[in-house]
């Protein structure tokens, strides 16, 4: 009995050791880089903390960014688990955001004058549907043409970004601005009521149930097991009767719906459809979130909060301590490499095997 407990404790310790090493390594690299470029690490760290979690503004921004990251990373985790490398979250989010705005602006605010919750859920649904359709474009190419989903989702990202930019620049009403009527912004009801002037919005309370749902789906339902089986060995899964082709389309659809919903939330948080939303480049950051969380939905929430805090903190670090926020990109990249290296070193081949 004692031996067993010891064993369990040792395993628990080992599970904790890796994230600790990762955190310490990150902090060391960050401090070294700051010293290297001739700035004061102490000041930079205190700015980092106050900008991310040490102030109300910081906390609100961290929560808002984490929301987007959670939605993106959940979709990425589901598709990586299914053996599909869908890296198109950002494009799907932008299409979702544009569709959500187009719906409300097209309805002339009728949805929101009926009831704010009707408007909000309509926008979320429109975002999810558009994101899913955009993602399914890549899914269809994969399913019927055998096109690599990596290339397809990557290219569709750029198409989406430019397409939305085109619509925004050539259709003022999509931005919530009507030049003839001099109406500005989207209806005020769209903004989730802020928390004392910060970026905080109610989307956070949607992200956590989404993570719970993904967790239950992935580990406690037959569908989730089929999905994981397909990711581990597509041939074997098919032989056992898993409808791999249909499942592939479903995975693309769900992944796109999650990202599209995040896009709609992003619009509702700021009240306009920008060409450079706060979540640009989050599509790639979300991959590191998903990988660091070992493609598990519940840890994704925690990891996303840490990454969002890093993103917020880097901004204030740049503003006051003169340390470029670009350093966070290096840290993100290094974390992904560390996760890949660890997985290759251990017997756990999940991340290594994806896509093969």
């Amino acid at each position, binding site marked *: 009995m004692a031996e067993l407990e010891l064993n369990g404790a040792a395993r628990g310790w080992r599970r904790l050791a890796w994230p600790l090493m990762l955190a310490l390594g990150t902090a060391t690299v960050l401090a070294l880089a700051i010293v290297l470029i001739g700035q004061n690490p102490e000041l930079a760290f205190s700015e980092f903390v106050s900008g991310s979690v040490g102030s109300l503004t910081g906390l609100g921004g961290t929560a808002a960014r984490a929301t987007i990251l959670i939605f993106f990373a959940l979709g990425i985790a589901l598709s990586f688990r299914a053996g599909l490398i869908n890296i198109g979250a950002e494009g799907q989010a932008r299409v979702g955001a544009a569709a959500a705005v187009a719906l409300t602006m097209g309805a002339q605010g009728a949805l929101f004058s009926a009831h704010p919750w009707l408007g909000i859920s309509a926008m979320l649904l429109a975002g999810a549907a558009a994101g899913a359709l955009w993602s399914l474009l890549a899914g269809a190419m994969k399913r019927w043409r*055998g096109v690599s989903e990596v290339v397809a989702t990557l290219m569709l990202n*750029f198409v989406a970004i430019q397409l939305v930019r085109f619509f925004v620049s050539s259709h003022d009403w999509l931005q919530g601005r009507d030049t003839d009527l001099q109406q500005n912004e989207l209806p005020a009801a769209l903004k989730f009521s802020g928390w004392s002037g910060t970026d905080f919005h109610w989307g956070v309370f949607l992200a956590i149930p989404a993570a719970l749902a993904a967790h239950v789906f992935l580990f406690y339902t037959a569908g989730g097991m089929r999905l994981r089986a397909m990711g581990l060995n597509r041939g074997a899964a098919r032989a056992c009767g898993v409808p791999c082709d249909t499942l592939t389309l479903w995975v693309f659809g769900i992944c796109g719906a999650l990202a599209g919903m995040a896009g709609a939330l992003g619009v509702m948080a700021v009240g306009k459809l920008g060409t450079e939303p706060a979540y640009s480049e989050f599509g790639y950051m979300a991959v590191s979130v998903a990988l660091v969380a070992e493609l598990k939905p519940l840890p994704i929430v925690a990891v996303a909060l840490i990454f969002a805090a890093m993103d917020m903190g880097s901004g204030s670090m740049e503003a006051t301590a003169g340390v470029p926020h670009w350093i966070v990109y290096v840290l993100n*990249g290094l974390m992904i490499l560390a996760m890949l290296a660890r997985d290759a070193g251990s017997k756990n081949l999940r991340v290594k095997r994806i896509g093969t």
Partner: protein
Amino acid sequence: MSPVEYAIGASVRIGTPLLLAGLGELVLERAGMINIGIEGVMLCGAFGGFYAGWASQSPLLGAIVGALTGAAFMLIFAFMTLKIRAEQIVTGMATNLIAAGATSTAFDALSAAHPGESLSVPQWAGVLEQWKDAPIIGPALCEQTPLTWLALALVPVIWLYFEKTERGLELRAVGENPAAAQAAGINVAAARLKACLASGALCGLGGAFLTVSQTSSYAANCTSGRGFVALAAVVLGRYTTFGTTGACILFGTAFYLRDAIPTHSAAVELVEILPYALALAALCWKFKSGVAPAGLGKNT
């Protein structure tokens, strides 16, 4: 100089970094690897080239160091994928992030250390500057820097290497079926490492072209998506040397037209879409006319 001649010259200039990076990615993909982070390799080349060119006030040295920086940076990718056997796509994405962060941080630190100075590389003269008034070839070739000539010269060289030499055949075999190549006595890892280094040097050179030849200065993320366009060019060129070259020239011309068209026009965004839309179309079409009927509606 007539407008047409000017357009040709500008298209060649815009197409050169795409061509260099496209050839780099082509070499890598023919060896059976895909690096979606060549944007990052280009950035490293651009910064390395800029730094050396500025420090030594020599664009030639800048270009050489740019190529070396690119090759050195590709060692990370090679180590992760060949030694640790990590997934290539995710590795490429990670190295891309590292490159974007590292080069921008380094440039911020560099400009902070030299406040008020404009950091620039001396202008690189054209190869045959004295003949720049010649019709068509004047702007298209004589006025261009040696890097453009090198890029164009590399096209037949790479084609000959892949199609007519035993080494090139071996590299293609490694790309088509690594296990069979290994069994036939080819050292797959060594061949792929060489492909990585060559690809890194080419992409680094493509990035360095931007800073030592095209603009003489550096800006954060100055490659602005050219690496991804090069990736699309390889796909559209169907993984052939001449196809990739043609695609790069096409995109170079399209980007010139985008810059020439008045900016408020909506065509700007649509031209930006062009490379990716064409590449996607080529992907779908290829599978239909080529291998695809067998794969059509197949229950994989």
